[in-house]
């Protein structure tokens, strides 16, 4: 029997770590990495859920998430490069000019 509850707990912990990273980190690259952690936590939760029902759907969703995360990071890194070009820093506080 696959430990469902534990699996969800671990992915929940990973997800929380990712959220904390997004909120606490000031460097854009680390923010992007924390988002990646959150997405992978969601992917893991899908795999756990799929294992619970003995369906392949969970792993299919994980593949979708993998592909989407790659697309997102490629656009994100392009923007980060251009930002670094203009601002010479990746500090989110220094980049943020509009009050938000």
């Amino acid at each position, binding site marked *: 029997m696959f430990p*469902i509850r534990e699996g*969800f707990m671990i*992915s929940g912990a990973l*997800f929380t770590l*990712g*959220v904390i990273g*997004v909120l606490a980190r000031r460097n*854009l690259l680390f*923010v*992007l990495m924390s*988002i990646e952690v*959150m*997405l992978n*936590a*969601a*992917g893991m*939760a*899908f795999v*756990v*859920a*799929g294992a*619970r*029902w003995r*369906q392949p*759907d*969970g792993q*299919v*969703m994980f593949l*979708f*998430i993998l592909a*989407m995360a790659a*697309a*997102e990071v490629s*656009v*994100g890194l392009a*923007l*980060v490069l*251009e*930002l670094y070009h*203009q*601002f010479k820093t990746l500090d989110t506080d220094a*980049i*943020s*000019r*509009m*009050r*938000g």
Partner: protein
Amino acid sequence: MNVTEQDFIALLPLLILAATAIAVMLGVAVRRSHALSASIAFAGLVISFGSIWIAAPELPRQVTPLLILDRYALFYIALLTVSSMVFILLAHGYFEKSDDDHDEMYILMLVATLGGAVLVSSSHFASLFLGLELLSVALYGMIAYPRRRPLPLEAGIKYLVLAAVSAAFLLFGMALVYGAFGTMRFDEIAAQLSRPGFDRWLVLPGMALIITGFGFKLALAPFHIWTPDVYEGAPAPVTAYVATVSKGAMFALLLRYFYKTGGHQQAPLFVVFSVIAIASMFAGNILALLQDNVKRILAYSSIAHLGYLLVAFQASGDLAPMAVGFYLVSYFVTTLGAFGIVAVLSDGGRDADLLDDYRGLFWRRPVVAAVFTAMLFSLAGIPVTVGFVGKFYLVAAGASAGLWSLVVILVVTSGIGLFYYLRIVVAIYSEASQAKAGPVIGAPAVAALIFLTAALVYLGLFPQPLLALIRGLTFG
């Protein structure tokens, strides 16, 4: 599962959108021409819009477990394609003013519209996710498109972080719901929810996370923090697109998902949605009072408008889908119009987004000023405009469900909203301080603004045909 010929016919609007994106891409490979790319994209949207009538006899049709094409989906696909046409008309003149390559904007826009169309017709978590990502990833590019200017770049990266975080929340919530029910289809989730004895420890956190994801995408309070920045930084036509197509598709999906599952009538979620609606109405309207930037004012006003929509969404009942549908149309018309005015008054260097840019506009450009005034009145919900009729039905839907506290807050906060719309109007009609004529407005943008103004007045005076159409929309 086999996909039959009828399925392909039902999918025509989506297939044509996808094909047009490829056609524009190939066109760019042959020859770079701003006008050509815009024309191909526009033609593709017109054909996609026309193909809705070819697809209509096949309805309702479940194409694989992922997509459902029903009257509801087709109505919103029609709304999205028409808005995208208006976007092209506005964007062509706007981007023509700066010299750079503009062709990719139309490819991104077509992909984003395709994402929106997938969203409104999705009946499964996987298609929801795919549609959402098609929409979002294309939008990052559109927002940061004038990449030599710092503000769009900042807005682009902020939107990326925001959208990626919201996608992660949504995905995690979906995983929990899937873990509890063993299915990702909306109708099967609905069936399981109506039976007692499901795993509450998975479903409630899952639903909460899904709502958080939706809240970020719809910029509802308290998830609205960066929205004004994105609206301010993005090029004006793209701001119009984000505010209408992206939010409209998302809201149509929200309505379908929660109507099918009935999840929002579960006691804890009902409270959560009510709190979000109230917070959005107050935060949007009160924070808008503090702004000097027209784009930011409109951003906060759109937060408030989504709060109003939630009132009808909460009401449930028969009146609710009609009120939401009509209000979305009115919101699309006026928001496209308002940001369209900002777009046509901008020059290549920066957007005309300060309140000072509009001081004395009436004495320089009486017609543009009159159109802008009409749009603002409609946003404020003043009679004769479509915004008034829309708000009337929202109140009616809320009242018929007995949601008096929400309805009272809707009316009170709309009253607060009047102040900041009137601030812009007063600026428009005040004495001119500068005698700058501003840029010339091209023919496509003029056509777009005439269309939007005509729709605003016509639907304000004769709402019946559209209401009858929306009343006939059914979930398949």
